[in-house]
């Protein structure tokens, strides 16, 4: 196999054969090494959360990855391929430029809160697809919270663990750990930034984040988009729940109860939360 090994033959056949073999071995080894190097580099650069979202996004079913512009009816069918990073999505820019897109509406709209199936979402804030929201405060920071559907999904909270003040949170990355008697849920941070205030006492909590200057809220849903999105989310919830083979259905258009886990305690709620809160 190597020129110094007895039986090495200096003929074209032998050498071609071994060359091919060594090439294959080198290509395979290089590929693996490259993957290792690149993953280390990426981990250093972007952190675990980002990559985790990269990989999680790929696994989201197409129904979850629906483009906000489809939800608002601007386009008939479009699935997001940009990991919900609307800020650098050319399509999104195009729609924004048209001026007609609901995405361009300001968050602090004077329209009343959107209500779908008894779930009421105020329109004075931006919504993350993982059912957290961000609302700009007078001091320029954003307060972060969980929306009404999220609240009902969680039911009574036992404890909340917020990132300590000063830590960086990232969009799509789990930031808030919520423990209930049905398990543990991870809530995503809607924006990139630094935690400036965090206070959790029992089941009550409050958190403020100072957004990174280079970051934006472009990816968050707002105003007229909230209604169609919530409708879809309820459908998604229904499918998730029906998938779980339990007698709990929204099919009749009924109102989701105050605390869904208490209504169906036998369910795998962690899985439901993971699905609905887009846990990576």
């Amino acid at each position, binding site marked *: 196999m190597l020129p*110094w090994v*007895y039986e090495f033959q200096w003929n074209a056949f032998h050498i071609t054969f071994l060359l091919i073999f060594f090439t294959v071995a080198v290509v395979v080894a290089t590929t693996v090494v490259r993957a290792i190097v690149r993953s280390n580099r990426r981990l250093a650069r972007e952190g675990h959360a980002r990559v985790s979202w990269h990989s999680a996004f790929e696994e989201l079913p197409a129904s979850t990855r629906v483009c906000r512009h489809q939800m608002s009816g601007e386009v008939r069918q479009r699935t997001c391929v940009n990991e919900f990073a609307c800020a650098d999505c050319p399509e999104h820019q195009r729609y924004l430029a048209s001026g007609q897109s609901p995405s361009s509406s300001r968050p602090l709209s004077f329209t009343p809160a959107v209500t779908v199936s008894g779930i009421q979402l105020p329109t004075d804030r931006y919504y993350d697809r993982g059912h957290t929201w961000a609302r700009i405060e007078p001091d320029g920071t954003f307060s972060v919270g969980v929306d009404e559907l999220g609240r009902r999904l969680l039911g009574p909270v036992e404890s909340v663990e917020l990132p300590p003040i000063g830590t960086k949170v990232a969009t799509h990355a789990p930031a808030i750990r919520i423990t209930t008697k049905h398990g543990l849920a991870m809530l995503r941070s809607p924006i990139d930034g630094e935690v400036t205030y965090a206070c959790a006492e029992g089941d009550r909590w409050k958190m403020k984040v100072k957004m990174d200057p280079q970051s934006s809220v472009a990816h968050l849903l707002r105003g007229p988009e909230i209604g169609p999105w919530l409708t879809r989310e309820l459908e998604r919830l229904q499918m998730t729940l029906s998938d779980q083979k339990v007698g709990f259905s929204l099919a009749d258009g009924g109102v989701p109860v105050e605390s869904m886990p208490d209504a169906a305690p036998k369910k795998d709620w962690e899985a439901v939360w993971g699905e609905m809160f887009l846990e990576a």
Partner: protein
Amino acid sequence: MPLTRRDILRFAGAATAGIVFSPLPWKMLDDVAIWTQTGPWIPKVPRGPISHVPSICSVCPAGCPVTARCVAGVPSSLRAASGSGQPLCPIGLTGHHLAYHPLRVAGPCLVEHRGEKVLTTSLSLDEALRRLPSVDGDRSVMIVDQRPGRAISDRYRAFVRQHPGSFYAVPDDDASMRTVGYDLERAHTILAVSTPLLDGWTTPARTARLIERRSKNDGLRILAADAARSRTATLADRWMPIRPGSEAALLVALLHLAHAHRQPDMTPSMRAIIERTTPERVAAAIGVTPVQLRHVYEKLTERGPSLVVVGGDGSNSVDAETDRLAFQLNRALGAASNGAIRQRPAIPVSEGLRERDLAVATPLSSVPDASVALVIIDGDEGTCHLSWESIVRTLHPGASIVVSLSPVLTALASHADLIIPSPAPFESFGEATGDGTDIACRYGVSRPLHPRRPGSVDPELVLGHLSGQVIEHEAALRDKVAGIWASRRGQIRTPDGSTTNLTSVEGAGSLWTALSEGAVWTLEGAPASASVRALESDASATDRLAARLSELAAGGATSTIAVVPTTWAPVTSCSRLSPLMTKLYQESGLRPTSEVAAVAPATAHACGVEDGAVAELRAGEQSSKVKVRVSDSLAPGMVQLSAGPDPVGFRSPEPPAVANALPRGRAAELRKS
């Protein structure tokens, strides 16, 4: 720069990685293969100076000249002595393995049968000898000598002569048929009747000469009359399939055609039998047509000298009557007068003994029933075709004991009460007394080549214990050689092929030296024109023959199948073989084991057995499990069995297979088991 522990570790790591790119680890890995090849579980070859020792093969009486290639004095192979022109047989080629036979008996021991198993309990030589009853007027001894003509044979005979009522017994065919030899080299037409003529019946050298002559087209014609297509039948020029057990009828019919009944010295009853046995009357019983019989006779008379050979190897020797008929037919064909059959001379007796002081050999079958208290079986390793029944019937019902001198626990030894093992071949001086079909008698001595295994006892010592006169084994042989020298007859043939008349050998000492260096003494016999006492038919034999012929004619078309034992002749003259013989018996299809029964497709169909199936073969009281082999080359209605000892029986001391006990032509049943 200070050297940290981390630096050292990194250096070690890098060095390890670097070694991988050097030839060193790979070369070592490569060598692993060689190490595994020489692991402790792989036998090591011997090392030492190599020498070539001339000797003779003493495994069977034929005594072919050999050269032993020895490593550090231990033979690693036996080859035919170059220049002797006498090749070896497979058994001779592996004769040096016999000292390491797995069934070797380590020392004197008692034998006990427990169910199927044979158990041995060792005991000291003194204890063993003490168990031998003293031989006196009341208690007689029978010494069964399966290799007569040796130095110890003379001592046995002298001992028996001094103890009236005792017997010096030899196998029947040694007593009768083997008193004549056949000059196959001179014959032009040979009819082999149920004889493995080309399959070890004589020495390999003589078989080779027949094949050589035939391939040179010198007119030699070999006819085979055999129930099965034996190997001889395969190689013969013409094969006549006969019904099993019809050999005597065939010979009588040929005697009829030879007009032998007109011979003046024939008994009237014999003459009557021959006269009425026309080919037409017996052809059907023989399984041929009268035309075929006449044709065979024509071939026999067309180009002489002609010879008819029958049986010859122990287990297949048809019977004494048939041997006598063959002798008479040969005589009628002129073989006696033209020297094609000769009366073989006896080997001179040992110095210090006189022929008239020695007992005459008794055929084993002539020893009366229940007449002896002590049986000593010698030469058991030499031949094995004696059945245990033929010995046990002679035992006195009271306290009787059978002692075997066999070095291995096979054949008769496994039935004996006590074994006092003699040395294996090439462990002490061995003797060869000549092939029983040869026209010459011969005597050769093989030198010890192996270190002698402790526990083996020379037969001289056992006899010495009985007679009170102990003689050394080598001294006994030297006496024998001196006796031969004193006869001043015959010649010696050295391993390189040169011959010298005994008269020009200076003394018994030089003869001993020559013999122990591989030379062989031979003495050719005279034409057997005169009557040979052992082969003349007496009245009772004639009656038996008449009865057999009528029985055969009556049972012309029996529905049962008939057993045809066939054998590879050397095997019957050797009760145990080298373990390497698995090459011929199990590892190739060359020699069937005694468990294989060949039948024609039609017979297999009729018996409801298939090729490869295990079936039960039953003949009278005997029954055994056999593996069926369907063969196109066999006549329907026959089952061909391999006779002799179980050639692979080196693994267990079980007695030989059923085929040995079944007479030729015995009716049998084959059933699916």
